[in-house]
C-alpha cells in the first residue's frame, strides 16, 4: 500500500478515538482486534525512520506488562471462585496488614481476568505507540502552538535522542564484546546502562542548547515555511476513527 502523506495530528486523533473505544467496550477481543488493525496500518505505512520502531518496542513492552500483571494478579489479589488450577500456600501476614492476601487458590477465572485486564490496558498504549510510529515527531512539533514550548523541547529531545540511544546501545554492546565480556545478564546490563545514561544525558543537554541558541521559543509567534495542509484524506481517516468510537 502506498504511504499516505497525512497531517501529523491525524493519526494521533484517530488513535485517541480507537483507544477511547477500546476502554469503553472493555472487551479483550475488541482490544486484540484494535491492536491487530493498528499493526496492519503501521506495517503498511511505516518507513525507515527511527521512530517507526516504537510500535515494535511497545508490543514487546506490552508482553512484559501482561506477564508481570498476570503473575502479580494471581499471587496478590482478590480471590475469584471457580475452577482451581493449583494452590499456593497462603503467606501469613502480620495483623496490621488486614485485607491483603498473598497466595491461596489460583483459579482459572482469576488468571483470565488479570490477563484480560492487562491486555486492555496494554492495547491502549500500543495504539498510541502506533500513532507515534506513524508520525514524524518533528512535523508534529511544527503544528503545535508555541506556548507548548516545554512540551516541544521534550518531544524533540525524546524523539531525537531515543533513536540515537538505540544505536548507542549496539555500539556499547559491541565494545563490551570486544573487551571479551558478556553482553547479556544483569552485570552486563549495568555495564551498558552506565555509559548509556551518561551519554544520553550529555546528548540531551547538547540538543537543548542547540535549540535554545537557535531562538526556539523566543518569539511568541512562529512562522511556517511550508504550512502543513489539512486534506480530505485526513478528515476521512478521522471520520473512520470516530465511526468506530460511535459504534462502540
Amino acid at each position, binding site marked *: 500500500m502506498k504511504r499516505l502523506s497525512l497531517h501529523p495530528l491525524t493519526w494521533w486523533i484517530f488513535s485517541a478515538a480507537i483507544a477511547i473505544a477500546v476502554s469503553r467496550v472493555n472487551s479483550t477481543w475488541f482490544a486484540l482486534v484494535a491492536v491487530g488493525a493498528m499493526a496492519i496500518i503501521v506495517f503498511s505505512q511505516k518507513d525507515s*525512520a*527511527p521512530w517507526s520502531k516504537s510500535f515494535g518496542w511497545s508490543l514487546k513492552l506490552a508482553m512484559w506488562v501482561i506477564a508481570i500483571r498476570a503473575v502479580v494478579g494471581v499471587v496478590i489479589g482478590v480471590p475469584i471462585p471457580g475452577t482451581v488450577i493449583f494452590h499456593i500456600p497462603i503467606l501469613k501476614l502480620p495483623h496490621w496488614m488486614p485485607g491483603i492476601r498473598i497466595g491461596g487458590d489460583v483459579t482459572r477465572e482469576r488468571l483470565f481476568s488479570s490477563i484480560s485486564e492487562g491486555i486492555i490496558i496494554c492495547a491502549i498504549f500500543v495504539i498510541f505507540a502506533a500513532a507515534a510510529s506513524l508520525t*514524524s515527531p*518533528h*512535523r508534529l512539533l*511544527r503544528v503545535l502552538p508555541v506556548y507548548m514550548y516545554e512540551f516541544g523541547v521534550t518531544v*524533540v529531545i525524546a524523539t*531525537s535522542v531515543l533513536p540515537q540511544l538505540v544505536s548507542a546501545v549496539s*555500539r*556499547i554492546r*559491541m*565494545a563490551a*564484546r*570486544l*573487551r*571479551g*565480556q558478556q553482553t547479556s545478564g544483569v552485570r552486563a546490563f*549495568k*555495564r*551498558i546502562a*552506565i*555509559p548509556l545514561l*551518561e*551519554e544520553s544525558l550529555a*546528548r540531551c*543537554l*547538547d*540538543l*537543548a*542548547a*542547540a*535549540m*535554545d*541558541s*537557535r*531562538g*526556539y*521559543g*523566543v*518569539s511568541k*509567534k*512562529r*512562522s*511556517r*515555511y511550508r504550512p502543513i495542509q489539512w486534506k480530505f484524506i485526513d478528515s476521512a481517516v478521522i471520520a473512520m476513527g470516530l465511526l468506530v468510537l460511535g459504534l462502540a
Partner: protein
Amino acid sequence: MIKFSNVSLVYPNSTTTVIEDLTLEIAEGELVLVIGPTGSGKSSLLRLINGLVPHHTGGILAGDISVDGVSTSSVKPGALAHVIGIVGQNPANGFVADTVEEELVFGMEALNLSNDVMRKRVEETLDLLSLVPLRNRALTSLSGGEQQRVAIASALVAHPKVLVLDEPTSALDPIAAEEVLSILHRLVHDLSLTVVIAEHKLERVIQFADRIVQINGSGNASVGTPEEILMYSTIVPPIVELARAIGLEEIGVSVREMRRMTQNLRDSFDIEVKETTRHSNDVIVDIADLTIAYQGKKALNTLTVKIYDNEIVAIMGRNGAGKSSLLRAIAGVSENSSGYVKIHGVDSQTLQRKIRRQTVGYIPQEPSDLLYGQSVQKECDQADSDNDIQPGTTFEILQKLIPGISEHVHPRDLSEGQRLGLALSVVLSSNPQLLVLDEPTRGLDYQAKRVLTKILIDFARVFNRSVVIATHDVELVAELASRTIFIADGDIVADGPTVDVLLSSPAFAPQVSKIMAPQPWLTVADVVAAIESQK
C-alpha cells in the same frame, strides 16, 4: 563586534578558573582561532559568546561580554539567535528536524520571519554551501562532511553577524575539511562575517586565521597574530615545528610562505630516493574477498589484503569510505556478507572472551564505550581480574602512558586524551597480538598525539606486534605508519609504504612534505635527519 571586558569564569564545584580576566575585542570580519590543550576551556570561551555559558551550564561569570552591543548577561541565548550562529562539536547532536530543508528553516520559523524571506534565504544558503542536491535528504543519511555543512548552513540562514564553530573539522577527512574552511574563508571575505573557531588540527586552519586566542588552562589567555602567538607557543602545527627545527628566524603559516623561506635549503640537497623498508613475511591478519553490505549498500567490496607482523598500517579514505567497517571486520564484530578475516589463522568472528582479548585489542571511535567503571581505579581493577594478572598492573601501564592520573577520578571527568589513555591501558593489559584503533586522534591536542604516537611505535617495534589504525589525520599517519592503505567506496585504491601513498595525493600530503617537495620527507624528523646526514 564581540567584546570581552575583564571576563572571568568559574564553574560550580570547581576550584580552578577557566578564564581569568580576559579582555578581548573581535572586530567585524575577523576570523579568530581559539587554541589550547584539551580541557583548557576553549568550548567554554565559545559558548560564552552567545551566553550558553553560564545560562545553560551554570557557573559564575565576572566582567561583561557584549555582542553587537548587546550584553549577554542581560538576555537569554535565544534572544541572540539572529546575531550569533553557533555550531557545536558534533553537529548531528544538535539537529532538530528530519530533512535538510526543515533543519534550515527551524531557526527562522522560531524567529517568526515571513515566508517569502525564508524562501529566499533557504535558496541562497543552499547555493552558498552547495547543498542543493541534498535539500530533501534525511539528515541521518548524510556523511560527516555533509552534516557539518548543513549545520553551518542552518546557522548562516538566519543571517547572523557572528559564526562560532567548535572543532568544525575534527570529524572530517582532509578534503571535506578543506571544503568547509574555504567556505568560511569566503564568507569572511565576501560578507564580512565574524568567525570564531576552536580547533586542534592547527595545520588545517592556521592559514585562514587573522588572530589567535591561546588559552593555557590555568585561566590565562594571550591574544595576537598567528606569527606572534606561534613564535613562542607550545601548541604548534608541523609547519612551525619545521621552521624552529631548521632554525628560521621567522615563521610562516602557509605552505607558500614556508617554501619561499626554505628555497635555499631545498636547493642544497639532491633529490633523495627513499628505500622502502621490507616488512616481515609472517602474516598476522589475512583478509580475503571480504564484502560487507548495509541495507543493500556495499560498505566493502571483495577486499583482499594481508597485514604482517610488526607493521603499523594506516587506513585512510574519505568519510564513509568503509574504514570503520574494515576495522570492525578485523575485530570480528561485523556481519560479513562474504569472505573472511583470519588472525593467526583463526576466524576473527569466532574469537571469544579471553582468547579474543589476547588476540585483538580494539579501541572504538568513542573510547568511553569501553569504560563503565565508576573510577579509574575500578576500571583498572576490572581489567586486572579479567586477565588474571597481578593487581595493579593495568594502573601501572596507565601511569606509564599518562603519568599523574588520579585513581579516584571518574572516567567521564578525564580529558579526551586521558580517556583514550585509560581505554588503551585496559586493552593493553591483556597483551593483544594486534591493536586496532578507530580515529584515535579526534579531539586530541598535539601533546596527547605525541604520547599516543610513541606508545604505538613502542608497541609495534619493542613488542613486535601489529597496529591497524583508521584516521583522517595525515600528520599522524606521517609520523606513525609504515604502510598506508587507501580506501574509496569499499575498494582499496592504494596500498603501499606511507611515503609513496601520501606523496602521490596532494590532498592527503602532510604539511612538511608539501613544503619540502619534491623531497620524500614527511615529518620534521625526516628533514632534521637529512640535514644531519648532510653534515
